[in-house]
C-alpha cells in the first residue's frame, strides 16, 4: 500500500499531470461491487444541495442587497431584487470622498499583485537552488524555511510594527509591501516542484551549450516550473489580500489602505453614518467578484498546490 502511494509518484504527479477531470466518470462499471442504492444516492445529493445553499445564499444576499436603495434594504424581501439601483450605487460609491474606494482597490492590487509576483520570483530562485545544487548548509536553510511556514502572518504583525517603528517607516507603502514579498511556503513548493519537473540532464545539456546558470534558470527551468509558480503566486496573493493585522497596525493614512481595511474602517462607523452601509455592501461585492472569478478559473492550480502540501 505504501509503495502504491510512494512519495515520489505523488509529488511528481501534480507537476507533470495536473488533473482537471474526475476519474470516476470514466470507470467501467464491470467488476464494481453492489450498485449504490437509490436511497444513499438521494441522501448524498440532499446533503450537497443543502450545503450549496449554505455556501451560496450569503453571496446571493450581498448581490441583491447591493442593488437596492437604502430604504428598500429594510423594507423589501432581502433575497430578491426590488428597484434595481446597482449602477447608481456603484456610481455613488466611486464618487464618495473623491474616489477613495478606487484608490483602495489599486492599493490592494499593488500590495497583493506586485507583492506576490516578487515573492514568487524570490521563492522560485531559492527553491530551485535548494533542489538542484549541492552545497553545505542546504538542509539547514530548508529547515529554517519550513519553520517559517508554520509562523502565521498574523503573528508577525506586531514584531514587524516594532521593527518599522524603529526606522520610522510605519504608515508608509513599504511597511505593508516589503514584508509581503517573503513566502516560505513558496520556497517549499518550488523546491518540491523543481525536484520533480526539472531534469538534471537538461541542466547538463544547457551547461554544455555554454549557457550560464542564471540564464539557464530564466530560459529553461522557470518554464518547466511554471504551473507550480502560478500556485505559489495564488497562495501568496490570497495571503497578502487577506492579511488584516499588518495594515491595521501599520497604517493611519486613508490613502494607503488596502480595500479590506478601508471597508472595515467604513463599517466601523456605520452606526454614526448610515449612508455608508450601502457603500460597504457594494464595495464588498465589487472587491470579491474578481477574486471569485480568478479562483474558479485557476482552481486546478489550487488543487495542485494543496495536494502537494498535504502529501509531503
Amino acid at each position, binding site marked *: 500500500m505504501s509503495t502504491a502511494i510512494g512519495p515520489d509518484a*505523488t509529488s511528481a504527479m501534480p507537476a507533470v499531470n495536473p488533473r482537471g477531470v*474526475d*476519474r470516476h466518470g470514466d470507470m467501467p462499471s464491470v*467488476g464494481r*461491487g*453492489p450498485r*449504490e442504492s437509490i436511497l444513499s*444516492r438521494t441522501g*448524498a445529493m440532499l446533503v450537497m444541495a443543502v450545503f*450549496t445553499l449554505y*455556501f*451560496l445564499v*450569503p*453571496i446571493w*444576499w450581498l448581490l441583491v442587497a447591493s442593488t437596492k436603495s437604502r430604504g428598500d434594504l429594510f423594507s423589501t424581501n432581502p433575497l430578491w431584487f426590488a428597484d434595481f439601483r446597482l449602477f447608481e450605487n456603484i456610481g455613488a460609491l466611486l464618487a464618495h470622498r473623491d474616489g477613495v474606494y478606487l484608490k483602495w482597490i489599486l492599493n490592494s492590487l499593488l500590495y497583493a499583485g506586485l507583492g506576490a509576483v516578487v515573492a514568487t520570483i524570490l521563492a522560485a530562485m*531559492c527553491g530551485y*537552488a535548494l533542489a538542484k545544487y*549541492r*552545497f553545505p548548509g542546504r538542509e539547514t536553510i530548508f*529547515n*529554517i524555511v*519550513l*519553520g*517559517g*511556514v*508554520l*509562523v*502565521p502572518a*498574523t*503573528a508577525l504583525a*506586531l514584531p514587524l*510594527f*516594532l*521593527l518599522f517603528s524603529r526606522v520610522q517607516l510605519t504608515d508608509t507603502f513599504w511597511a505593508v509591501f*516589503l*514584508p509581503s514579498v517573503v513566502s*516560505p511556503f513558496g*520556497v517549499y513548493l518550488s523546491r518540491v516542484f523543481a525536484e520533480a519537473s526539472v531534469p538534471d540532464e537538461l541542466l547538463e545539456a544547457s551547461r554544455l551549450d555554454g549557457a550560464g546558470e542564471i540564464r539557464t534558470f530564466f530560459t529553461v527551468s522557470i518554464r518547466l516550473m511554471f504551473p507550480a509558480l502560478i500556485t505559489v503566486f495564488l497562495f501568496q496573493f490570497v495571503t497578502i489580500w*487577506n492579511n*488584516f*493585522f499588518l495594515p*491595521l*497596525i501599520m497604517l493611519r493614512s486613508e490613502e494607503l489602505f488596502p480595500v*479590506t481595511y478601508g471597508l472595515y474602517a467604513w463599517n466601523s*462607523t456605520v452606526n454614526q453614518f448610515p449612508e455608508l452601509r450601502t457603500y460597504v*455592501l457594494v464595495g*464588498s461585492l465589487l472587491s*470579491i467578484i474578481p*477574486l*471569485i472569478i480568478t*479562483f474558479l478559473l485557476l*482552481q486546478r492550480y489550487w*488543487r*495542485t498546490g*494543496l*495536494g502537494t*502540501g*498535504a*502529501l*509531503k
Partner: protein
Amino acid sequence: MTASATPATAARLAAEEGRGRRTPTRRRRVQHPWAIVAFVGPFAAMFVLFYLIPIGVAVWQSLLVVEREGTYGTATEVFGGLRQYELVFQNEAFWTSVGRVLLFGIVQVPVMLALALLFALLLDSPLIRGKKFFRLAFFAPYAVPGVIAAIMWGFLYSPNLSPFQALTSQVNLLSADFVLWAIANVVTWVFVGYNMLIIYSTLLAIPQEIYEAARIDGAGQARIAWSIKIPLVRPALVLTAVLSIIGTLQLLAEPQTFRSFSSAVTSTYTPNMTIYATSSIPNVSLAAAFSVVLALATFILSFTFLRLTRRKGADA
C-alpha cells in the same frame, strides 16, 4: 527565538517524511557557488529582514520596561528582565481571551473538518452527480476575505436586515451568549471548502486499484470510505487540523469586524485583539510579551497535537 528553529521539526513531522534521506554529500568542491548565492541570497536577505529580525526585536522589546522621572517626566526604556512576563501572567483579560479561543477551537475545528471530510468523501464517491459544480460552489467562500465575510454575516445576523428573521427575531445571535458561535459560523463558512479541497486532492492521488479488492469482497461505499479512504487521508487531516489550530489562536479579523455589530465583542476578545489594543495604548513592551507568549502557546499546541496523532498512527 526558538520559534524559528523548532517549528521546523514540527513541519517535518507533518510532512510525513515524504523524501527519503539523501545520501551524505561527499566532500568535494561546491559547484557554481556564485549562482547559488545569486539564487538563495535575495530570498534569504528578505527572510532575515522580515522574519528573523522582527522576531528578535519583539523578544528584545518584551524585556524592556518604561521608567519615568516623576509622573510627567521623560520616559526612558530600560532593561527589565522578565518583568513584562509577570504582567502577562497576571493579566486576566489575556487569559480569558486565550480560554475563549481554545473553547472556540475545540468546537469549531472538529465541526469544520468533519464537514470538509464528509464533502471530500462524497465528491470522491460515485453517489453524486455534478461534482464540478459542488466543488466550485463550496470553494467559492474561500475567495471572500475574513473581514468581508464578517461584514456579510454581521448584516445577515442583524435582526432588522436579515433574510432569516424567523430565526434572528427569536434569538439574538449577536448577544454575549451566542456571538462566539456566530463568529465560528463565519470562519467555518470561509474555510470548509478550502479544507475539503486539501482532503479531496489527497483522495484523488490514491490509485483506484486499492479499492478493487474491497469491491470484489462486496464492500459498499460507506465501508470503503471508513476502512480505506479515511486512514489514507490521515496525513491530510493532521495537516488541516494543525493549520486550523494555528488559525484559531490567531483569530483577529472576524471578531474585530464584529465589534461594530455586537457590543459583546470587547477590545480584548481574542489574544490578538488584546495585543492590538495593548500596542495602541501604547504599551509596546507588554504587547511584545503577549506576542511571544502567544507564539509559544501556538507552537506547543500544534506540536502536542502532532505528537498525539503520531502515536495513535503508530499503533494502527
